[in-house]
């Protein structure tokens, strides 16, 4: 099966890969680029564990083909921290126990970072609906929502 050459940007770095047109960005990230921080929970866009941003827009990487990434900018969980410095959301998630098993955490962090960039002062309801596509089976969401609300407040104060 013929493969297609793709050049794209992941977390600011230019990368190239060959992929089958049936492969998704999720497949490419995990299997071709070795970036396993982005998780697969369902493969059908129902769980949000594979959330990334594509040209700044929050999407499920399982619902984007690898070939569609040509010339685009991808951001994943691996790019959230700056070197050793965690993003305030990452710090707050640890502090608030906003994760138990941690499998949904990369997707939720990518999604909430996108939310706070768009809306620095969301209501609890807005956070809950924004994250409705990120399934978490462990926490009941309580501590996740609190961590996001509190991070947003801290970031507003800091800016």
């Amino acid at each position, binding site marked *: *099966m013929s493969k297609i050459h793709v050049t794209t940007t992941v977390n600011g770095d230019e990368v190239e890969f060959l992929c*089958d047109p049936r*492969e998704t960005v999720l*497949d490419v990230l*995990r*299997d071709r680029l*070795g*970036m*396993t*921080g*982005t*998780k*697969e*929970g*369902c*493969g*059908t866009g*129902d*769980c949000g*564990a594979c959330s990334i941003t594509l040209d700044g827009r929050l999407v499920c990487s399982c619902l984007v083909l690898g070939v569609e990434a040509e010339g685009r900018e991808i951001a*994943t*969980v*691996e790019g*959230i*921290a700056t070197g050793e410095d*965690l993003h305030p959301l*990452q710090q707050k*998630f*640890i*502090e*608030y*126990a906003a*994760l*138990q*098993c*941690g*499998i*949904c*955490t*990369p997707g939720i*962090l990518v999604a909430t970072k996108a939310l706070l960039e768009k809306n620095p002062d969301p209501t609890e*309801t807005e*956070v*809950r*609906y924004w*994250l*409705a*596509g*990120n*399934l*978490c*089976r*462990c*926490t*009941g*969401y*309580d*501590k*996740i*929502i609190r961590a996001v609300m509190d991070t947003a407040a801290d970031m507003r104060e800091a800016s």
Partner: protein
Amino acid sequence: MALDNTKSTGFTHVGTTPDRPDGVDKVTGRARFGADITAPGMLHAAIVRSPHAHARIKRIDTSKAEALAGVKGVVTRADFATGLTGENWNILENVMAGDTALYDGHAVAAVAATSSLIARDAAKLVVVEYEPLPHVTDVDKAMAADAPVIREGAADTSVPKGLHPNVVRYHESGHGDVEAGFAEADLVVEDHFKTEATHQGYIEPHACLGTLGGDGKGELWCCTQGHWNVQKICAALLGLETANLRVTASEIGGGFGGKTAVFIEPVALALARKTNKPVKLVMPRADVFKATGPTASTSMDIKIGMKKDGTITAAQGTFRLQGGAFPGAPCEFTAMCAFAPYALKNVRQVGYDVMSNRPKQAAYRAPGSPMAAFAVESVIDELCNRLDLDPIETRLKNASKKGTKASFGPTFDRIGLVETLEAAKAHPHYCAPLKPGQGRGISCGFWFNHGGETAVSLALSEDGTAQLAVGTPDIGGSRASMALMAAEELGIPYENIRVTIADTATLGYNEVSHGSRVTYASGLATIQAARDAVKKLCGRAAAKWGIPEDAVKWENGCAVPSGPNAGDFDPLPIAEITKRMGATGGPIVGHFEATPEGAGVSFATHIVDAEVDPETGKTSVVRYTVVQDAGKAIHPTYVEGQFQGGAAQGIGWALNEEYIYGEDGRLQNALFLDYRIPVASDLPMIDTVIVEVPNPGHPYGVRGVGETSICPPLAAIANAVSAAAGVRLRQLPMSPPRILEALEQQRNG
């Protein structure tokens, strides 16, 4: 075991809430879960599954698949061990079908290829010729005289004569005279209840990577709740020597009981053996729903008698559990948990384990207990309503306490049910005003908890830090709890303890992370191992000082003379001892290898407010409070997390989650799209109250907390719906069509 030296107050570390040791890994994407493991030259595998609910497998033709470029091997049942018996045979039969496919999604063959796309393509080229057989998926229908027989001879000796061959186990227990008790009652309520199967719904699909050479030596990496169990079962299913298979647990993306079982690991190993290459196998989500353990579905009859003052005079329950095409539905737990919250003179419970053409049920958080609580607590609510009694006062009046003869037989030691009820009664939620259309429900719940085989090792480093190796996979932050307990005993900072989940080659056998046992049993083991290390540290100090070992005690991370008579020496810090340990007797390692048997039972009381839209039948949970006895909360934030998570899963079970089978016996909702677990916008904040009634069987009083939290929500929500809409739902899920139907029936009288 003797628990001298117990401690309930004056903690330095226990009860604080530091960041978890694996926190940074988990928020940066660095943590390696099951599907994140790779090996050079590895192949990818895909499993061929039956599209039939029940069918004889007449022929499997793998030639086309094998001919596809990139395919390196295909396995069927012929590639596994023969001559297995008992549960090992059941597991093998479930992992790879023999001559009959027993449910939609039953594995029949597997393919390994150079890429996952090729493996998937090849799986479609495996030709399986089936002869469909009659099927049954409903528990009541599976017990009926005309039901197709799933497998003759599967019943054990517990089953009374005359029952259908699909009834494979039977439980009966209780005490007193229930008929006499019902005769004493002022009101007897008897009702029938049904619950559908639900899935544990962990977000991480099962995944593993295995190698297995012709020398019979293998390695396996997988996401599991217990890798020693995986080792044992894989060795049996593949005919290996157990010690020759080393299993390492990856990080685990949720389990809730569903990853206590083995599904794909033996398949990956069989393919690895056949191809002589590492084989990675990751389950697609649809396969997770179709072929890994949902919980049992149930059909239940409950009868309870009560006096006008609220005293329960007798209780009786019949619990029929469908657990798929194999024995194992936890009918005895359903029966034994059902009436455990209440001190009853007369009680009788009967359980049936029933086979059907569904996947083999697996444990799910307090297996069997939530369904029982749904039925029993609904009937108690109904009695309270009709007798105009307060639901908490009534439960308090009948509550089990220390000295109560439990419904399942023994006498309770110290337990915390009364304390949870009192705390619920005192909580502002219980008397908060409700809006029109809203109703409040409460329910109690019970789970036994478990100890189990446990081995840990605590090795001190030269700089006085400690490496703690435990064998129970960390599913919700247990590394933090272990480190807190080790820090407490060693008197060193929490950060100085590195906790690792060791592989099967490193420690003795550890039972799976189940039964809410990790903080209890691995915690107890950690404390004892630390005490063992401390004893050795004190010995080194004693030798240095030239005084007897028992003249040295351990305080704040230092050896000190035990009293003025022991001598006058400056405190000797841990790092001073470990720095010279090589020259003073060798490495210092604390151990624990035993089976702790003092897991304390746990009770909870939940309060929930629900709102029902009378025009659409849709229920919203608007306020939720969990009150539960934790014995002693080691890391209170993580205890709260267990309370909240159990409540959320219970809410899903109550309102939306269910296995939906078509007339053809095929599962219709094997995606998260239609297997509807709660999403963030479905839930309110979940308030928690941690009650601490110490467990006499743990040095700090810990009771497991992971499971009890899922027991009360089903009934609590049913009771809230009843209060909000005036209709009682006796079948789960309480879906909008069912509620609307109930409302209509009520209107029509």
